[in-house]
């Protein structure tokens, strides 16, 4: 049976990197007595795969990984047992059965993520809320992407699905996953540039709200949360 686990990562846990979060959950499975399945072979390992990694420093209410169960366990029981084994800042939200076909599971289906971002160091000019709209009305949003070998200019506008003011924060929904991937920090940096705020003087807190799969057809985008693709396992 395939299961999708959704969890939150907040507080000090934002400084725990992706690989360490994986190791953390491998141990949590044992502490929480989750009947997870192991791979075959001389050194068996838990069958577990994580969705899009979250950058260090970013908090989240919508993180996911999929596991394979050796025996069934109810969603309610599993969530309780896992939360009893969590540390402060980590919380399991749901534990849901998902379809067996590879195409719909795995983490290849991740297509988008949304974030709330706010300024934690430095400040934006007073009219930043009005400027947010103007920012998205540009034909192109060009940023310089630095790789080890080269620097190149990229238009990130097609990867920004939504960019809206929410009280003192910005809400953004961006392309995420193996096909296209945009980090929220880059968008905020581009917006700061647009406002004429020097790059070094600002820092942002980014909080991921959820991860989405695209179930739209014929090029039409239709984003649904990864959680919505699962079903409760009853007692």
């Amino acid at each position: 049976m395939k299961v999708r686990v959704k969890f939150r990562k907040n507080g000090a846990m934002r400084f725990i990197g992706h690989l360490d979060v994986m190791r953390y959950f491998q141990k949590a499975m044992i502490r929480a007595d989750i009947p997870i399945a192991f791979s075959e072979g001389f050194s068996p390992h838990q069958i577990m795969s994580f969705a899009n990694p979250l950058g260090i420093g970013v908090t989240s209410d919508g993180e996911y990984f999929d596991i394979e169960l050796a025996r069934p366990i109810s969603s309610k029981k599993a969530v309780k047992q896992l939360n009893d084994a969590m540390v402060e800042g980590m919380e399991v939200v749901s534990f849901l059965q998902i379809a067996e076909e590879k195409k719909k599971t795995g983490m290849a289906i991740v297509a988008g993520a949304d974030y709330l971002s706010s300024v934690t160091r430095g400040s934006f000019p007073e009219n930043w809320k009005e400027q947010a709209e103007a920012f998205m009305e540009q034909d192109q949003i060009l940023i310089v992407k630095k790789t080890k070998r080269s620097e190149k200019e990229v238009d990130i506008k097609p990867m920004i699905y939504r960019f809206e003011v929410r009280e003192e924060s910005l809400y953004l929904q961006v392309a995420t996953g193996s096909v296209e991937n945009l980090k929220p920090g880059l968008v905020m940096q581009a917006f700061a540039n647009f406002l004429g705020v020097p790059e070094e003087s600002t820092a942002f807190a980014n909080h991921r709200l959820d991860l989405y799969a695209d179930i739209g057809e014929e090029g039409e985008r239709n984003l649904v949360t990864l959680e919505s693709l699962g079903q409760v396992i009853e007692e």
Partner: protein
Amino acid sequence: MRKLALSDDILMTVEKPARYIGNEVNSVMKNPEETEIRFAFAFPEQYEIGMSHLGMKILYDMFNRRDDVWCERVFSPWVDLHKIMKEKNIPLFALESQDPISSFDFLGITIQFEMCYTNILQILDLGHIPMHALDRGMEDPFVIGGGPCTYNPEPLADFFDIFYIGEGETVYDELFDQYKEWKKSGKSRQEFLEAAAGIEGLYVPQFYDVSYNDDGTIAAFVPNNEHARPTIKKQVMTDVTNAVYPEKPVVPFIKAVQDRVVLEIQRGCIRGCRFCQAGMIYRPTRERGVDKLKEYARNMIKNTGYEEISLSSLSSSDYSQLEELVNFLIDEFKDQSVNISLPSLRIDSFSLDVMSKVQDVRKSSVTFAPEAGSQRMRNVINKGLTEEDILGGAGKAFDGGWTRVKLYFMLGLPTETEEDMKEIARLSDRVARRYYEIPKEERHGKCQIVASSSFFIPKPFTPLQWATMFTPEEYIRRAYIVKHEFLEQLNRKSLKYNWHEADVTMLEGTFARGDRRLCKTLEEAYHTGCLFDSWSDFYDHEKWMRAFEHTGADLDFYTTRPRSLDEKFPWDFIDIGVTKNFLKREWENAMDEKVTANCREKCSGCGAGTFGGGVCIESKS
């Protein structure tokens, strides 16, 4: 939600911020308002190393069982954070509460190896705690040291209020109770130290005066305070089976060096190798009951979620219930894919059988520690491993499918001749020859024999504590003799030889047998930038040499100088049970190349029997 001591900006800049945020599984949170004693327990090394240490886990667990104590962890901030904390004047904090350690009641520092001494000063410095015990006031914590290096605490004497000599399980409760009483009484700092000095096993260095002879050796070491004892008796937990054990150890987020459940199966070692400090200071050898260990193993896997369990002891093969324990572990965890690792095992049919069950033969290697190449030299150091054992064990391993063998040696041992050195290469070759005796069609390609040598460092409370060291040039010369001999061997293409650095060896040897006059040198070295000296990337030999020069300390005095049998050593005031007479006898046996039986074969009357426990009473009960 806890507030972190470091800002986001800093945590986002430094390497591995997880080292500084605490919050790990099983870390202990308490209400500071409800705890009378705040204890900061420091391991003066990188987080990943400190988090691997069993002693710290034991005491963390034991202290936190008391409702009136909150014990928290502290590690050396890595070099990147060190710089930031110095620049911004950020005080060093404990991981759990994130509170500055200067506000704690105690700062306990475990001292595991000599090359962490500058890191100790870093902790005091970043902790905003006066470096010298004599400069501390009522607001400052009491700084207490423990661990193997406190068997000669003198090179650190100026920086500590108290040293705890021996195993931590015995008198901390008494110290905490005394502390609570003192805190209420409004008495002076000195009066608490006097109370501490009254507890067996606790040493307050400022209560002793040392005078020196013209040749620089110690003339007298005498108490200057009526509460101070002339000798300090090592603390021993006689009944280890019923001692506390950390069944819910803290599980780090990042990978520690030893990232697994650790089961301490016994303390001490019956073997009596003459170079080995652990083999002497942890006498008598005491086993933990196998039923308790089984229970711990089950509980600890469940409490941590680790997928690996490792046995810990100086010589696992000497544990009398080993077979029962190992079979239990294999059986118990076979469905949970828990790996079992068995270090310090004698290579024989039993251990090879076990190893083939718990690890992948093709990927693993078998390890021998002959320590010396020739039988003559092994007799000098009383290493009871014969060439027959090594070749026989290696042969069985080869027959079982292993192709990789590691061999550990020491160079620079007392009485060592060129022949002894060359035997390291020849013995390695004979191991390889044993492999090529197997018919070609049954072999798995070539074998790989990796020999490494470290330079021998005489340690206090060992029979070889009288030995002279050599200059770094001489060490390197010896390593080259071995290296050249390796090139002469028939199977040289299957052999590999590595040796350790010589400069650090000399420094470690200096502090191992040093005295309190070295405190100045150490302080000078820290202030000129020496830190993380056990990391070859950071060890700065020139800075150290300048520190010796500026403080007028003579390296040769501590290293290459011959010591007479009646010399008064800086550590002679400590009573470890094992007597100086026994050590002298063993030194003479070493010079005569005479082997001494192990504790189970025959008691050699070392003196540890005074503790009335472990192997000393085995045959009597």
